[in-house]
């Protein structure tokens, strides 16, 4: 895949280079493991300080500062500290971790080893999604190669530091990617998220020991922070949004794919890099960071105040493509899985599709999410089959409101946010279905076709 001139690649710098392979030799020819060699000569605290200074934010979805997360780890308990690489990439529209694992696995392993050294971790796990069997094989092979070169295992590079990495194939459920659900699954149990408190992973994580859970992309960044230093790293992107971000763009654009960028606007990514909408089409809306994020409507103005007190007034294309920019527009950059909906897409049909997914993936642990998601699926499904009732739109909003913020994990938001934001932005489309039903002469077939034609 050709690199677009507007891209700024760090993590995927070599991944798409012709002749670059997942083999360790290929990685080392490009300077691979130099940073691990450097790391083991440093004080762990110095590495932690660099990561903290880099202001690196987690690339898994919530965007929580990585260094701060590491600082929460209970180091006085006397229990072993574990590091878990979350490679359970399950959010619809997101496929960035897969690229790293498939194309540059050693970068991930190096990032894990640096992070483990910094945190005094003796055992790390890569929890990889069951549906990525090829990726698991690649990682297994890569760890073998790294062990042969003494980058992983006992007495790493003669430093006296030992750490092993175990690849664990996931249990094939969306919720296995939720931090504490993942830990439960890794322990061999059903992936039900844990209640917090008391189960904050930094204190009571895997096997009730302090545990760091980081995303694949986050851990890869550790290599580059060490390479360029925190100060240089923070110069990439905007303040508080340091580093590059891999975006997975899918849907109605001419060049869907994954792109690593920094400091761009949403418009630059979608129109310049991805080529904009397909010929004859226009962009209707964008889901910025994975299917659970709130939708952004084209044509709307996003207004508010910047932290420095100045006003912003953005169109969709003006939104800064980072955590704070997208948050200011009312959504989240989430997993980086950007989905572009063009004018052919029926929003109620898209929502019905999402509700089918989320009701299927709800772990079923807490009542609001378990029962509410299936209820919403049934309403939206009925709606796109021409059987909506006038009260359905308000009911959906109410049901979503009864789920959001009332569940053990953030899955409740993943179910509720699309409903709330889709209706908020495209209420007329939802009402149109109900209006058809109230018309006794309505052509049911035509209503169903609304789901196809928007």
């Amino acid at each position: 895949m050709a690199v677009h001139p507007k891209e700024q690649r760090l993590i995927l710098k070599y991944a798409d280079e012709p002749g670059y392979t997942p083999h360790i030799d290929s990685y080392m020819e490009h300077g691979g493991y130099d940073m691990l060699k450097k790391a083991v000569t440093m004080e762990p605290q110095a590495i932690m300080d660099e990561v903290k200074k880099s202001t690196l934010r987690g690339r898994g979805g919530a965007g929580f500062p990585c260094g701060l997360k590491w600082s929460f780890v209970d180091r006085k308990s006397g229990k072993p500290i574990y590091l878990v690489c979350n490679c359970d990439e399950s959010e619809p529209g997101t496929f960035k971790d897969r690229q790293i694992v498939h194309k540059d696995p050693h970068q991930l392993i190096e990032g894990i080893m640096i992070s483990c050294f910094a945190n005094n971790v003796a055992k790390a796990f890569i929890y990889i999604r069951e549906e990525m069997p090829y990726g698991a094989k690649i990682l297994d092979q890569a760890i073998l190669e790294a062990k042969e070169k003494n980058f992983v295992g006992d007495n790493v590079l003669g430093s006296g530091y030992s750490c092993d990495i175990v690849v664990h194939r996931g249990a094939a459920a969306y919720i296995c990617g939720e931090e504490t659900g993942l830990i439960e699954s890794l322990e061999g149990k059903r992936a039900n998220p844990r209640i917090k408190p008391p189960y904050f992973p930094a204190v009571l994580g895997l096997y009730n020991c302090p545990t760091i859970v980081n995303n694949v992309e986050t851990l890869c960044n550790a290599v580059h922070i060490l390479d360029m230093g925190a100060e240089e790293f923070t110069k990439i992107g905007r303040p508080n949004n340091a580093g590059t971000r891999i975006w997975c763009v899918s849907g109605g654009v001419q060049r869907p794919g994954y792109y690593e960028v920094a400091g761009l606007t949403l418009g630059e990514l979608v129109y310049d890099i991805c080529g904009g909408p397909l010929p004859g089409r226009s962009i209707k809306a964008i889901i910025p960071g994975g299917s659970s994020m709130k939708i952004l409507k084209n044509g709307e103005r996003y207004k508010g105040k910047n932290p420095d007190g100045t006003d912003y007034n953005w169109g969709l294309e003006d939104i800064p493509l980072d955590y704070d920019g997208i948050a200011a527009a009312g959504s989240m950059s989430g997993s980086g899985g950007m989905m572009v909906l063009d004018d052919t897409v029926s929003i109620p049909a898209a929502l019905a599709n999402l509700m089918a997914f989320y009701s299927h993936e709800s772990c079923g642990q807490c009542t609001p999410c378990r029962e509410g998601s299936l209820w919403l699926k049934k309403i939206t499904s009925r709606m796109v089959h021409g059987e909506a009732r006038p009260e359905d739109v308000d009911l959906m909003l109410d049901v979503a409101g009864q789920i959001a913020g009332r569940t053990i994990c953030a899955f409740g938001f993943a179910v509720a946010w699309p409903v709330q934001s889709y209706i908020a932005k495209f209420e007329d489309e939802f009402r149109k279905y109900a209006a058809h039903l109230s018309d006794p002469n309505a052509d049911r077939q035509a209503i169903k076709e609304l789901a196809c034609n928007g």
Partner: protein
Amino acid sequence: MAEEKKDNLITVNIDGQDLQVPPGTNMVEAVKMLGKEVPHYCYHPKLSIAGNCRMCLVEMGMPGRDRATGEPMLNEDGTPKIMWMPGPAIACGTNAAPGMHIKTSSPKAIESREAVTEFLLVNHPLDCPICDQAGECKLQEFSASHGRGYSRFVEEKNVKPKRTRLGPRVTLDDERCILCSRCIRFSQEIAKDDVLGFTDRGSYSTLTCFPGKELANNYSLNTVDICPVGALTSTDFRFKMRVWFLKESKSIDFESSVGCNTVVSSREGKVYRVTPRRNDEVNDTWMPDSGRELYKQIESEDRFSYSSVNGSETSAVEALKAAGEILKGEGVAIVASGRNTVEEQFVLKQIADQVNAKGVYLVARYGDDDGILISKDRNPNVRGALATGLISELPSEKLSALGAQIDSGEVKVVLATKEDLVAAGLSEEQLKKVKLVAIDTHATATTKSADVAIAGLTQFEKSGTLINQQFRIQKFHKVVPGPVGSIDDLAALSAILASLTGETCPSVVGTVWEKIAAEGSIFEGLSFKGIADTGVLLDGSAFSGLAFVEGKSLHFEPKLEEAAAE
């Protein structure tokens, strides 16, 4: 709470009212202390916190602190400024903290409860009139008190299987399960038999046994007790009786020296079920399945329901008169039982003294200790026999010493209560050598060869007290009348004693206690009425030298020297 030092208590504010609670108290318990209720399904005070039903959502706030200075934020009137959490918090999984404010009935809390109730009902069958749990169902109760009263759900319900067999004693109506996971946690944490789990996802989740396993442990029916809805049912009790028709009597499980507290439910003289009664010092809220079966002895085919003299059926009065005459003879030995009540043992001790008994025996029953609620000593009241002075040593499993006394001619008369002497090691020939008076509830080799046989009562048909392994005296109450022809054991023994002494003797529990609680005894100051429902701990130090056989159980830790003696 009363034992907590005042200094350790923390103050929380619940619905505007300050309350002091011990640290570590969760909101559900804190609110309960105030006499209010936070409705909940998954929370159980004796299980780990799951926090999954979300029924106990309340509003929570903490005194604010200025981020920059760290100083407390104050209102204009100088009171702490409370920073309320944007969303509701679960009361079961949130411990009270100093200064915490809780709103249990704010609009947001009420709306949260209504929402959870609505969610729980969308895929739940709305057939309370035919549900076996009707009358004891928390969903039914909370729907009435915390629901909207109408349904907005017009979709087709997600219907789950009915009548799934989880084990020999538990049947699952899956369509009713609200996935609270209490049963799963009980199996893991209390029964130590991790066989239950959920399968499938979302609303299609169902409770199931792990492949190749079944819920067959001796505590399986506790899952039925704690199921908040009608999902887990007792296969034995299922659809036999509407619970609101049942009379509930407080009783004790007789199957071992643990003495689990129970509730026996009956109607019109018939017992329908036995369930545990909460006693945090003995059995928490649990009991073994095996103890729930004991009521079946009331109507068992071998129930002994008439008295006889020399093999001929007679009235109890005639039988007692004949028994008194026999016991006036020389060489009397008494075989009492660890299943006798304290009161019966007390009267037996008086009889033994009166006849100058050649020997007083108890029959020990030992089985495997399960470490939970069944102890190695399967007699419920060996300590009662010690405390009343009936015996001074721990009993043997076999009556060989008595056998030798009979063979030597030293013993010529035997009074046996609640024990089959043949099962305890005496031969039929040895029984023929003595005059025998037997009081029992079921036909045995002993009652068949007795000169006088008296039909007694099961524990469900009388009242009394037992002393458990902790030396805790606990009382149980009569549930149903005994069969026609039977006589209360205590009354029978008192009548025998009266005929021996020529004086009247108290014959009911309450009046016998006036004598039991004599000055200087271990029972001093007690009365049957005065014994709390959860029992009274007696001073058993006088018996600490005996090698009691019990190991550790849920709330009993044998002393080290006793364990060593074992």
